[in-house]
C-alpha cells in the first residue's frame, strides 16, 4: 500500500470509530439475532450508508474514499497482492488445512462447519468466538482452521484475531515476532487498525496477533475501543468473517465479554481432555442463542498413511 492510501484509510477509520462510539452510546448492544434474521446491521447503517451508496455506483470511487465495503473483485485482487502464499505441505506442517487436501477428513469437517455458519448467518459476515472449555483443548487450532476454511471461498475473506491473552498462538503463523498486534493497538492510539492486520501466507486470510510480548489486561476487552475495533473489522469488509481465537472458558470473565462481542460461539472440547463438568460450566457462561455448538476436537481416527 502506498503512504497516501494508508493515510486515507486511517482518516476513514478514525471517522468510523467516532461514529461507532456515538452509535454504541445511542443503541446499546446490538441484538445478536439480527444477523440470524438476515437483517442488515441496523445501527451502523446510518453511518455506513454513504459508503454503501458509493459502493453501488462504479467501483473506481471506492479506492480514494478508502471505505470499508469492497466488492469480491477487490478481494480477488487483494489475494493477488499476498506476499507469498504457503504451499499445502507447509500449511499442514503448521496444522492448517488446505483446500486441495480433499482426502483429509479434517478439511471436510471444517468445510461443513463453515457451511453451517454461513447458513446460520444467511450469507452475512459474522464474528465467531472459538473458545476451549479449558486450556489445552485446541481452540487455536480450530479457530485457525475455521478461518482458513472461510478463506477457501474466493468470494470471502477471513480475519483471525488472537484474543487468548495468556496463551497467544496466532503470532506463530507470522514470520516476524515483533509485528504490532492488539496490545499495541490498545496502548498506542496512533496505530491504525490496518497496521495490526497481517497476512499469514494463506490466500484471503489475515490475522491480528496479541502483539508485543507483555500481557494485556483483560479489561481491554471491556473497553469501548475493543468493541469499536470489532465493529469496524466487521464493517470494513462485508465478506469478511472474523474468527476470535478466545481464551479458555475457564477464564469465565474474558470468555463472557468476548461472547458478547461476537455473533456465534463455538466451544471446543478435546478428546480425553475436557471433562463434563468443564463443558457444563463453559456452556453455562454462554447465552444459548449465540451458541453454535460444541466442537469435539482431536477425535482419534486412524489416518490414511498412503
Amino acid at each position, binding site marked *: 500500500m502506498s503512504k497516501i492510501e494508508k493515510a486515507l484509510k486511517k482518516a476513514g477509520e478514525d471517522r468510523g470509530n467516532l461514529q461507532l462510539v456515538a452509535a454504541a452510546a445511542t443503541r446499546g448492544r446490538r441484538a445478536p439475532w439480527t444477523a440470524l434474521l438476515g437483517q442488515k446491521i441496523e445501527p451502523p447503517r446510518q453511518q455506513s450508508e454513504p459508503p454503501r451508496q458509493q459502493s453501488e455506483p462504479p467501483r473506481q470511487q471506492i479506492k480514494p474514499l478508502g471505505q470499508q465495503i469492497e466488492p469480491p473483485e477487490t478481494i480477488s485482487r487483494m489475494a493477488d497482492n499476498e506476499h507469498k502464499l504457503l504451499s499445502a*505441505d507447509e500449511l*499442514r*506442517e*503448521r*496444522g492448517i*488445512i488446505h483446500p486441495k487436501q480433499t482426502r*483429509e*477428513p*479434517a478439511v471436510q*469437517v*471444517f468445510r*461443513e*462447519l463453515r457451511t*453451517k455458519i454461513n447458513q446460520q448467518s444467511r450469507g452475512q459476515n459474522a464474528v465467531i468466538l472459538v473458545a476451549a472449555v479449558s486450556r489445552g483443548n485446541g481452540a487455536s*487450532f*480450530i479457530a485457525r*482452521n475455521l478461518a482458513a476454511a472461510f478463506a477457501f471461498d474466493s468470494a470471502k475473506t477471513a480475519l483471525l484475531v488472537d484474543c487468548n491473552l495468556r496463551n497467544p498462538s496466532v503470532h506463530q503463523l507470522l514470520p516476524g515476532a515483533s509485528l504490532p498486534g492488539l496490545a499495541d493497538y490498545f496502548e498506542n492510539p496512533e496505530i491504525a487498525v490496518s497496521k495490526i492486520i497481517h497476512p499469514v501466507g494463506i490466500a484471503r486470510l489475515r490475522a491480528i496477533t496479541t502483539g508485543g510480548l507483555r500481557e494485556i489486561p483483560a479489561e481491554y476487552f471491556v473497553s469501548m475501543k475493543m468493541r469499536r475495533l470489532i465493529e469496524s473489522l466487521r464493517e470494513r469488509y462485508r465478506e469478511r468473517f472474523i474468527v476470535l481465537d478466545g481464551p479458555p472458558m475457564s477464564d469465565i470473565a474474558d470468555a463472557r465479554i468476548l461472547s458478547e462481542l461476537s455473533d456465534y460461539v*463455538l466451544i471446543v*472440547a478435546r*478428546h*480425553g*481432555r*475436557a*471433562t*463434563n*463438568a468443564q*463443558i*457444563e460450566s463453559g*456452556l453455562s457462561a454462554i447465552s*444459548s442463542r449465540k*451458541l*453454535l*455448538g*460444541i*466442537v*469435539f*476436537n*482431536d*477425535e*482419534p*481416527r*486412524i*489416518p490414511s*498413511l498412503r
Partner: protein
Amino acid sequence: MQMYPEQIATALINESFYSRRLVVGMFVIVNVVMLTAGLLWPKSYTGSTSIVVDEKSIMEPLMKGAAVATETADRNRNVREVILGRRILGQVLERAGWLADHPTVLEQEGLIERIKARTTVTAVGRDVIKIEYRDNNQERTLFVTKTFADLFIQEMVAEKESETRSAFDFIDKQAREYQQKLTVAEEQLRQLRSSNLDSRPGSDTELSARLIALNTRIENTTMELREAEMKHASLERQVNGEAEVTVLATREGQFRARIAELQAKLDTLRLTFLDTHPDIVQLKYQIQDLRAEANAQRERRDKFKPSDRLETDEMVVNNPVYQQLRRDLSQSQLTMDALKARIAEARRLLQEEVDRGKGLHSGDARLVELTRDYQINREIYQDLLHRRERARVSINMDSDRQGSSFRILEPAKSSLSPNSPRFWQFMLGGAVLGVLIPLGLLFTRLQFDPRVRLANAISEEHKVPMAAIVPHLWSPGELRGLRKELAILALVVTATLALSATLSVVRFLGVL
C-alpha cells in the same frame, strides 16, 4: 450411556490407536509374564487310585433296633479326615523319603501341609472314593498314591476291628448288667409273693365274687328277717285277741246249761199242766238244786280269783287256738333270732373280705410293677445275648478278614506326562490376554473416565448440538513419525510373538 456394538467397536479401535503405545506395551508385558509363568510353572504329575468303601458301622447292624447310634459325621469328610490325618501322613512322609534329611518338626509340619494341599479325596458314586495326589516327581507320585491307598485300607481295617471289639465289649457289659438286674427283679418278686400269699393272679376277681355272694346273702337274710318280723307281729296281734281259756267249759256253765234246759222243759210242761203237777214240782226242785249247785261253784271260783291263779279244775278247758298261736309265736321269735344272728355273721364276713381286699390291692400294684420290670429285663437280656453271639461271630470274621469291606478298585497309577498347563497354553493365553486385557482396560476407561472420549456422549449429556467432530490433523512430519512408530510397534509385537513361538518350539523339543 447406551452404546451400540458397532459404536463400541469403533470407539475401541480409535482408542486403541490413540493409546497405541500403551496397548502394545501391555501386550508385550502380558506375553512376557505368561511366557515366564509357562517356563517356571512346575511340572506336575497326578496319581490316582480308587477304593471301594463299604463303611457301615459294625455297631449299626449289631445294635439294630436295640440302641440308636449317634449320627456319624458326613462320610466323605470322615474318610478325608482319616486319609489326611496325622497318622497316615506321618507314615507317608517317612516311606516316601521326605524324612531322609531329618527335617525339623516345623519343616515336617510344612511338608505335611503341602502334601495335604496336593491331595484330593473325592467321592465317586456311593461307595467309591478316589484319592488323587499331585507331585512334580512321577515315581514319587505313584508311590505316595499307592501308600495312601494301602495305609488307608490298613487303617480302616484296624479301626473296624477295634470297633467290632469295642462293640462286643459293650454288648457284653450290657448283657452282664441286665443279668444282674434280672436277678434282682426275680428276687424282689419272690419276696413279694412270699410276704403276700393272697396276692395271686386272679385273687381279685375271687374276692369280688365273694363280696357279691356275701352281700346277696345279707340281703336275702334281711328279707327273711323282715318276713319273720311281720309274721311275729301278726301272731302277736292274734294272740291278744284270743282268750286264754274257754269259759264254756266251766262247771257253773254246765249247771246253768242244765238249768236252762230244765227251765225249758218246765215251761213246756206248764203249758199243759198245773204247777202242782208232779212233774212240774219235780222239775222245780231239780232247777232249785242246780241253781244252788251253780252258786256254790261261782262262790268257790270267786274265792280263788284274787290269787290270780288259774283255777285248774277239771271243768277248765284251755283254748286250742290260743295254744296254737302261742306256739307259732315262739317259733317265729326263734326264727327271727336265728336270722339276726346270720346277718351279723355275714356282715362280719363282709368286713373281713373288704379289709382283706384292701391289702390285696396294694400288693397287686407292686406285683404288677415288679413283674413288668422283670419281663422287660428278661427280654433285653435275651436280646443282648443274641447280639453278643453275633458280635462274637463278627470278631471272628474280622480276624479272618472275611467280611472286609475295603478293597482297591483301581490300583494306583500315575499320569505319564505332566498334566500341568502346557507351555503352548501359556503362549496362546498370553497372546489372547495381551489383546483382551488392554481392550478391557480401554473399555473401562471409556466408561468411567470423567474426561469425554465420545462425541455423542457430550451431546447426550449436555443436550447441545455437536457443531463438528474434528479428527486430528496429521502434519506430514507427524505422519512420518507415526509411520515410524507404527513400524516399531509392529516390530515389537512381531518380536514378542516370535519369541513366544520360538520358546514354544524349543520347549516342545524338550530342550528347556
